[in-house]
Structure formats: structure tokens, C-alpha cells
């Protein structure tokens, strides 16, 4: 017996739209089973995981804070993935953006001016873009696999940050803790609303999503991205350069990851520490695919994944369980998203062989 995936003749539009919701439903169902196996009441667990964080104003602010980097990074990644450039190293670009943007408040901390914040943001984008430029250069000119190079550079960025905050950038008045000095008020990204902590990083994320959506939908550049992603050869026929597209998509997604990094550091943490991201750069990959590589879909999926972070923290407190269920939830979600998509495009067929197979081949 063997199992075959057979391409469906036509794909149901309805189910293509429903797919992320079905995936979400299945995640909740199997998540509930997981809680039951942990000996907790699944309904109250799911309630405190997914509903409770939405009921209070302060936690809505936390949601926006967590969603901002996810959306910013994922929007940039969507351009990469649509053009068939597989940037897996957004986590590293996020960190390098945070470091580059922190040069002003950490090294030139005495300079206080309204120009500091915009310059920090620009430096953050520049840092992320330059770091993404390394795998871009390697792919465009040496034909290196960008999945490997961009992923490996994440560890370079993490260790570089670690070295900085323990070494040259350590706060001289910080009791030897591995941290930089805290940012001056002029270097802190202001809050968006008076009601809570959510900073302008969320505004940047929404703005970036709208701009990229507009580019993909209405402009020749967006068309170029789509065509090169589907077929390099057709892109060449149209006069588009896939080498330039490697640079464009990698630098754009690097810049957005870098912006996410400096916005997170400046808005939420206000100093550099050895670890500044709970894996935003990797979770953003899930966000990008859950949002179907559509910038507006990514806003929604970014909020959903941010909720899994928040809910995870909540159940740690309320149910006394470890932080592992968050990871399981995120894994379940990605698994179900991908399998729902696969089953919408393909159907499973079991092939049974007759017992009286005269050739004897089927018995193998």
C-alpha cells in the first residue's frame, strides 16, 4: 500500500479563505487535549490563554507591543518569500538593527535632541539592512544558499550582542550587570495612546503593512516580485533582474526587521541586554505564512501569535505550568496551517494492490 497526494482539479475558494480559521480551531482543540493531559481543565486553560488577555486594557497594550515586531518583520519577510528569497535570519537582523540604533543613546548618550529618535530609527533600519546584505551578497554573487547563511548569521548577531553588553557597552554604573545604560527620555519611543504602554512601534507596523500591501497590489514593483517568485525565467523575459530582486527583498526585509529591533529596544526595554527578543524573528515566519504572505493578513496573524505569547505568560501564572506550552501552541498552529493548505490543494489517495498481482512487484 502507498499513499499518494493528488493535485485537485480545482481549488475551493471558500476553503482557501476558511483554512487559517480551521487551522486555528484545530490548534485550540488539540491544545485543549494537551491541557487535559497536563491535568488542567481545558476550558479554563484555554480561556486564560486566549480570552482573558483580551479583556483588560493593559493587556491589550501588551498585545500591541508584542504584535508590533512580529508584524513588522513578517511584512518584510512576505516580500522575500513571495520573490523566492528565503530569509530565515530576521532574528539576527532584528538584533543588529537594535544594536545599530542604540549607538546614539549608548555611545553618544550626552547628545540630547529631537533628532535622536528619528536618527535611531534610521540607523536601526540601516543596521538590519546591512546585516541582511551579507546573505544577499553571498546569494547574488556566489550563488550561496541564503537559508543557511541567513540562519547562521543569527547566532553571530546574538553572540555579538552578548559580547557588547558584557564588554564595551556595559553600563559603568550598572553593578556589573550585563546591560547597557538605560536610554535617555529623548531616545525612548513615545506611547501611542494615553491609556497604556503601547509605543509607536505598532504604528510603524500598521503603516508598513499598508504600504507593502499597496506596493504588492498596485505597482509594477509588486508585479515584479510576484513574477520573479513564480518563475525566474519568465522574470528575465519581462526584463526583471532576479539578482536585483535578491538585493531589494533582502535589504527591505532586513530594514524592517532592524526597525522592529530598535523600536522594541527603544519603546519597550529602553536598554540593551544579552537577550532582547523571545524569538520574534523566527515566530514572524509563522506569522508570515499564517497571514498567507498578504500584509493585511499578517496584521491579523501577528495579533494572533502575539496572543499566544501573552496567553502563555498568563497560564504560567494562573495554572503553574512551564512556558513550553507556548512553543507547542505555535508549533501546532504552523503544522495545521500548512496541512490545511496542503489538503486544500491536494487530496489523499490510498493505493491498494491486488493480492493476485501477477508481477509480484506490489508486494515489495
Amino acid at each position: 500500500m502507498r499513499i499518494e497526494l493528488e493535485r485537485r482539479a480545482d481549488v475551493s475558494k471558500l476553503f482557501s479563505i476558511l483554512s487559517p480559521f480551521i487551522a486555528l480551531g484545530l490548534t485550540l482543540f488539540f491544545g485543549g487535549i494537551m491541557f487535559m493531559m497536563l491535568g488542567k481543565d481545558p476550558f479554563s486553560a484555554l480561556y486564560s490563554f486566549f480570552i482573558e488577555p483580551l479583556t483588560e486594557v493593559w493587556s491589550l497594550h501588551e498585545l500591541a507591543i508584542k504584535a508590533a515586531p512580529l508584524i513588522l518583520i513578517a511584512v518584510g519577510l512576505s516580500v522575500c518569500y513571495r520573490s523566492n528569497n528565503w530569509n530565515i535570519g530576521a532574528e539576527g537582523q532584528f538584533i543588529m538593527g537594535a544594536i545599530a540604533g542604540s549607538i546614539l543613546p549608548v555611545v553618544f548618550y550626552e547628545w540630547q535632541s529631537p533628532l535622536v529618535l528619528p536618527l535611531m530609527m534610521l540607523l536601526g533600519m540601516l543596521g538590519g539592512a546591512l546585516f541582511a546584505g551579507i546573505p544577499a551578497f553571498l546569494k547574488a554573487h556566489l550563488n550561496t544558499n541564503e537559508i543557511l547563511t541567513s540562519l547562521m548569521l543569527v547566532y553571530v548577531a546574538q553572540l555579538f550582542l552578548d559580547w557588547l553588553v558584557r564588554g564595551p557597552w556595559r553600563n559603568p554604573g550598572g553593578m556589573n550587570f550585563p546591560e547597557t545604560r538605560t536610554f535617555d527620555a529623548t531616545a525612548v519611543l513615545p506611547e501611542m495612546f494615553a491609556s497604556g504602554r503601547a509605543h509607536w512601534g505598532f504604528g510603524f507596523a500598521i503603516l508598513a503593512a499598508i504600504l507593502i500591501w499597496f506596493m504588492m497590489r498596485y505597482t509594477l514593483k509588486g508585479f515584479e516580485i510576484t513574477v520573479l517568485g513564480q518563475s525566474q525565467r519568465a522574470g528575465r523575459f519581462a526584463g526583471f533582474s532576479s539578482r536585483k530582486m535578491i538585493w531589494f527583498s533582502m535589504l527591505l526585509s532586513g530594514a524592517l526587521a532592524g526597525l522592529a529591533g530598535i523600536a522594541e529596544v527603544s519603546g519597550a526595554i529602553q536598554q540593551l541586554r544579552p537577550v532582547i527578543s523571545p524569538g520574534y524573528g523566527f515566530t514572524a515566519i509563522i506569522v508570515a505564512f499564517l497571514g498567507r504572505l498578504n500584509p493585511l493578513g499578517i496584521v491579523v496573524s501577528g495579533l494572533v501569535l502575539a496572543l499566544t505569547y501573552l496567553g502563555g505568560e498568563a497560564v504560567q501564572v494562573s495554572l503553574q505550568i512551564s512556558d513550553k506550552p507556548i512553543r507547542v501552541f505555535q508549533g501546532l498552529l504552523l503544522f495545521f496551517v500548512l496541512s490545511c493548505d496542503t489538503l486544500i490543494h491536494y487530496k489523499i489517495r490510498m493505493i491498494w494492490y491486488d493480492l493476485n498481482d501477477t508481477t509480484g512487484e506490489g508486494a515489495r
Partner: protein
Amino acid sequence: MSAEGQPANSLLLAVGQLTKLFGTFAACNGINLDIKPGEIHALLGENGAGKSTLVKMLFGVLAPTSGQIVWQGQPVRISSPSAARKLGIGMVFQHFSLFEALTVAENIALSMDPGVSLARIAKEASDLSHAYGLPLDPHAHVADLSVGERQRIEIVRALLQNPKLIILDEPTSVLTPQEADRLFETLNKLKAEGRSVLYISHRLEEVQRICDRATVLRHGKVTGACDPRQETPSSLARMMVGGDVAHVSAEGTGTKGAIKLEARHLSASARTPFAVSLKNICLKVHAGEVLAIAGVAGNGQGELFDALSGEYPVASDDVILISDKPVGTRGINARRLMGAGFVPEERHGHAAVSALSLSDNLILARSQSDRRAFLGGGPLGLIRQDAVKMAAKRISAAMDVRKSGENPPAGSLSGGNLQKFIVGRELDRQPTVLIVNQPTWGVDAGAASRIRQALVDLAKSGSAVLVISQDLDEIFEVATEIAVISEGRLSDIYPASDLSREKIGLLMGGMYGKTETAETAHAH
């Protein structure tokens, strides 16, 4: 081989109501076919008629959805190619499955049972190939062999299994006329030994020449079973196409104007180890001319198209001229802006993106040449969808593109209709130079004649047309001038009326210059 001594009148293979569904699409729908021992049986049909699907089921590559296969009186289920080989079915595919970096003997060894020494295989292959008039050097590397020789490897590989039935899928599409003649002799030898051949083709002349019986397929169904020698080419064509095919009229061509496209000693090195380099190609196409470049596949046609279109510009500017302006180093869009249009060989993933709509595929080729009409918003480059959709509609109407819905994805169109759209996309601009690679490859006869007529009409209206084609029928239908490409070299250009098939065949074999005159004299 277990079943020796079958009664001569019994059938070797009988296929009953064989059906293969892909989703809801029936590639083969209730096919009945029987093959007697010692006959050459033709399977006729256009591209997409279901021929390849049928033989893939016979060879165990695809599993049938329903129906039965009876082999020498026994119902069988053929679950894999090795099961088919064990039964005594050999197959030579249209696209070869050979490793170019290995030798002939090594390639053959890969399909044999393990444990046989390479030296023995080399000896057997060499003996067998000479016995059947298909000489092969077992120690040659495949990469160094011509397409015809590669096909011989496949045939010898099949013969080494001592098959009772050999299936050949479009074997002559890659051969020169002379190589094809040789193949036919081999087939007759096989027949004389009592082996059967299932011969797949859409070339009526060949089928009439060598086949004893024919089964005709159209849209996955059998539309005729006959003795091809009792039929006329047009009656066979009707069975294949389901109607009469319009004749292309080339009247009124032949008034030459200025030179619109020129290549001067164009050379280009091969981009990949197994690509062909272009060597010193010179050609001129005048306004009002259709220059056809004949040649067997894989002799540099694709590379020539890439260089002329500017998809891969060449190192020096003045080896390619469009309307007397040097463009060798310029990209494809710069050449389009000078009035050139291009139709590459591969439809899916080169000339068109299958998942994108027709209107998007229109922008693909014309985003720069029709910048003013299709783009707005200055540097933003906003695509004016309404204008593009109007143009796509105009093209579909002009070329009679049949499609489901207003603006469907390119992948949902049949090969012929998509090709009509791709050609129409260029014609719509009234290009002064049109370069087309394999204009009707895999296209149904109706669409093919429409496309050929459009090319002829474009030349008549004063444009220069360059057609690269493997199809000699097509070349004689459209060309005013003919040249032949072989191993990256181009022959001289001859007026179409001065060339015969035999002479083209000799040119295809790489005989040009001095030897060519002697050989031509011999051929006449």
C-alpha cells in the same frame, strides 16, 4: 522469457476500457487497443490527446483508474517499469533519461539487474547495436553524443531486455530525416524478428510509411482504428483533429525591404556545461521576409534566441543589430523599445506565468514598451488594470483565444490557446522584428495554422520575422528563406524554394560549406 511459442494469431497485448482520471479530467477515457505479434502499430494523436498517458500506463509509470490490460492472454497489473520490463515491454521515451557525465555502458548498466559486469554490458550493447544497424561506442560519454546517438542508447537499452513489445514515443521529433530513415530500417528488422512496436507519432507521412495498423486518439478517446496505408493523409488528419485544418497561405510574401535584424559573427560561450555555444553566426532578415531556422533540438536554438532577444546579452554591441542599431549588450526591454517582439519556446514559466491571469501575462511582456498606456503614477509605477484588461481582451478576440471566464489564469488555457495569446501579445504591438522560437510546439493543428498564418501576415505587412523551428512542415509553410542550425553554427541562408527536405537534412547533420555541395549532388 517464459512464454515462447505463442500461437501467431493470438494478441500480444489487449487493452480494454482503460481509463485514467486526473482529478475530474479524463486523460484517457475507455481506451481499447490491441497489438498483434510482429506488427508496427501506430498510436496517432495531437499533443494532449492522451497518447503519453496511455503508454505510461502500459509501462507501469502511471496506475490506471479503471479498465484492464491483457498481456499474452493473461490479465495483468503493471505496477512499475521494472514489472513492465519483466513482462517483456520496453520503452524509449521522448525525453531521454540519461546521465550526461556517464558513459554509454554505465548508463545502460543503471537500468539492468545489478551484478552484471560493466565489461559484459559494454560488449553486449556494442554487439546488439551493430546487429540492428545502430552503431554505438559503449565507452563514449553521453555528453559528447548527438541527440540521435542518445536515442540509440535508449533503444539499445530497451533491446537488451529482449522485449516482445517496444514502445517508441515520438522518436523522430529529435532526428534528421536521414537518421529517421535509419531508425525505420531498425524497426523493420525488429518486426521481422516477430517483435511488436507501438509507434507514437503525430507525423502522418511516417505512420503511412512504416506502420501496419493505426489507432487514433483525440481528447482521450479512440476516434479511429485503421490501416494507415488505406487512408489518405487528410482522412488521418481528420480523425486526429476532428475537422478540416485551414491551409496557410503564403501568397504575397517575398517583397524584400530594408534589413531589420542582423547578426554579424555572433558568438557566445555556453552558460552551462551541457549548453551549446554559438559559433560565428551571421544572419540578415529583411522587412517582408520570414527567415526560418531549421535544426534538430539541442543544437543551439535556445541559446540563439537568448542572445537575439537580449535575455542574455552578449559581450559586444555591434554583433546584433535591430533596424541598423547595435544592441548586442542591451537588455530585452531596450530591444522591445526598438520595435522587436519575442516569443520563447517554453510557454509555462518563460513566455507566461501559469498562475497569473492573462492580463498580468500581458504586462509581463509589455510593461516597458507600453509604459505610457499601462502604467501611471509616475515613479510609483501603478499598473492601470483597466487599460491592461482591455488590451488583453482585444488580443483574445483578435487571435480567437478560447478561455473560461473573462481573465483566467494562463495555466487554465490549453496549449494552443495560450500560444495564440502569447503570439497575439506581440502582434498587437505591430513589431518591426518578431523572433519566435518553436511557434507551434505542442499546439493543436487548428491553433497552429492560425499562428502560422499570423506570422506570414505580419511579414506581408512589412515586418521582419525570424522563426526557429524543428518542424519541417511548418518551415515550408511559412518561410521565405531558410537556414539550418547545427551544433551552434548556422548554415548559409537559402531561398525556401531552393531547398528540399533532403538538403535540409544534410545541413542538419552539420554538412555545410564545401562538403554540402557534393552531398547535395548525391542526394538529388
